[in-house]
């Protein structure tokens, strides 16, 4: 994505193909030759700029260091800049550029002394720092207010109201619930959200005393899931009801795992299937087989490519962020509700920036307000 933008900016600098014969008159020396320490870099680099309106055959770049004067590069006449990366930090250099004509070479005036230094802060990324500070302050502020007991409202999420009903249904029919915590690792946000929801669902299966099956693909997620379910059963006051083989590791191979869970669903005929977390191409195999067994299916993922299959094949689908909000919604835990509120305000700020920014940018068409055009550059990334 980043390179996308650099490329678009680079569009303007396509060097025009060099056409036309060199005029025999002696070329004028390059004008406005400037040298400065390359900004926002790790040092050892000096940038040269000049306006070459000469019709020379080529240009010579000469650097004068404390102990030597050498010609470091020859470039095409069309070039107007050069990056010298063979310099040492904190050493003073001066530069000269020559336009080479048919018989003679004309030198420009040499630049002022310049030395290269590494920078401690990348000023191009100030916009990201501002965005980070604003968002962090908001999330932490709302978590603190939630801690002080202020109740925070969360809108109804269809898929999650069905959890209560789905667990009840499983108990009446005396059939198990299959909970697939996704195929991601513990470092994936969707897996963390899914494990939190598993904790809530386990509390309900403990209360209703219905069977719960949790097949895992990642060995580490397996250990975390087992702890989560055991803890939920003790919190629900039913430590004895926890069955050791309800949470188990299957295989970490994507399609072998999908085939194994399919076999489980066809054999056990669960009343409810949960598919919450990270999914890839196997989402379709699980959702389609699950639909055949007649179970209620509640799915949720942040993977845009897999959501279409869940939406068409499952009864309820949590789209992207709804999966993250689910654990806050089910647990009503102040910390989670607080951060959810922070995210909502983050979205509001983004919308405000987009609307106001667009209005100003459109106004910048009128010459007097042209400076609004620079809003776009503020959002450049590098």
């Amino acid at each position: 994505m980043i390179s996308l933008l650099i490329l678009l900016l680079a569009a303007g600098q396509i060097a025009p193909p060099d056409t036309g014969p060199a005029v025999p008159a002696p070329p004028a020396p390059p004008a406005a030759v400037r040298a400065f320490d390359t900004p926002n870099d790790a040092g050892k680099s000096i940038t040269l700029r000049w306006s070459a309106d000469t019709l020379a055959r080529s240009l010579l770049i000469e650097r004068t260091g404390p102990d030597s004067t050498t010609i470091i590069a020859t470039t095409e006449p069309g070039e107007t800049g050069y990056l010298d990366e063979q310099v040492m930090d904190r050493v003073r250099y001066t530069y000269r550029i020559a336009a080479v004509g048919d018989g003679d070479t004309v030198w420009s005036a040499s630049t002022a002394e310049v030395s290269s230094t590494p920078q401690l802060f990348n000023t191009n990324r100030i916009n990201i720092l501002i965005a980070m500070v604003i968002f962090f302050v908001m999330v932490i502020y709302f978590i603190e207010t939630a801690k002080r007991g202020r109740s925070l409202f969360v809108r109804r999420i269809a898929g999650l109201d069905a959890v209560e009903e789905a667990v009840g249904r499983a108990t009446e029919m005396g059939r198990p619930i299959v909970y697939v915590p996704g195929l991601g690792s513990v470092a994936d946000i969707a897996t963390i959200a899914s494990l939190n929801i598993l904790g809530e669902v386990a509390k309900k299966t403990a209360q209703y005393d219905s069977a719960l099956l949790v097949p895992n693909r990642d060995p580490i997620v397996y250990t975390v899931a087992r702890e989560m379910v055991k803890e939920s059963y003790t919190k629900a006051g039913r430590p004895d009801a926890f069955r050791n083989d309800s949470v188990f590791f299957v295989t970490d191979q994507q399609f072998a795992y999908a085939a194994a869970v399919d076999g489980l669903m066809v054999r056990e005929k669960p009343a409810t299937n949960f598919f919450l977390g990270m999914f890839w191409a196997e989402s379709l195999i699980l959702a389609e087989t699950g639909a055949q067994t007649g179970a209620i299916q509640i799915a949720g993922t942040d993977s845009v490519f897999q959501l279409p299959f869940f939406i068409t094949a499952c009864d309820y689908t949590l789209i992207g962020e709804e999966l993250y909000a689910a654990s806050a919604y089910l647990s009503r835990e102040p910390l989670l509700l607080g951060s959810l509120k922070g995210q909502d305000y983050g979205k509001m700020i983004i919308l405000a920036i987009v609307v106001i920014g667009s209005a100003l940018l459109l106004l910048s068409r009128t010459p007097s307000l042209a400076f609004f055009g620079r809003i776009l550059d503020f959002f450049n990334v590098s």
Partner: protein
Amino acid sequence: MKFFESLLKLDRRIIYIVVGLLVMLPLIKPLGLGVSSGPRARALFDAVDALPAGKTVLIAVDFDPSSMPELYPMLVAMMRHAFAKDMKVLLCGLWVTGSGLADQAAQTIPKEYGKEYGKDVVYLGWKPGVDAVILGMGENIKNVYPTDYYGHPLDSLPMMRDVQRLRDIPIVFAISAGTPGYQDWLLYAQSRYGMRVGAGVTAVSAADAYPFLQSGQLTGLLAGMKGGAEYEVLVQKAGYSKAYMPAVAAMDSQSLAHVVIMLLVIIGNVAYFATRKRSS
């Protein structure tokens, strides 16, 4: 209503057989559902076609065997186009897993036009590093590739005498299944050496390439199997090749496959709503 119920209980295997046959048959006997060449494929074709004989076209094979069905036909079609116009083809690649494919193309396609390795086609092989490779080739190809994929020193290959560095090559056709790929050729080859860049990509990543088309950085774009088929048709219509066109045949299968999927969804829904109306 009995009919709809039995329809709902249709065995999956019957669906598999139907899909399997409909996809396989056109490969054996192409239906020729007609591939209309879009503007993007034509732009690339015209750019290459306008080059004088003797010029060299650089093709970057930046994909691996798993995206071969979509991208390999593009490589073959471009090579046929260049050879038919007595142009020379220089192959290189930023993906180590693509070396086998470039080698296979370098051995099979030139024979169709009586072209000789070293004189009309050279395969440089793979080298680690992306910006280092492209920038190095910009200064002097021999710095990056002292020898070609088969170990011949570059000086011993007649074709390489008038191709010292990227400025001597008018256009690079970057066939990429991801990164590294055409974006690197744009970032390094075009902005620094003014090379024109054409891109061949998989269908899934085509949408990401559109901005580079609108900005004029990409000289043309082939997207997925359809893009390959469009170029194959252009090459054949211009009389440059009469060989079997894998992408065009595949497009017939792709068309039938899409139609089958849509019919299945429609039938499935009709049966579902019919039985539901009766039961509710």
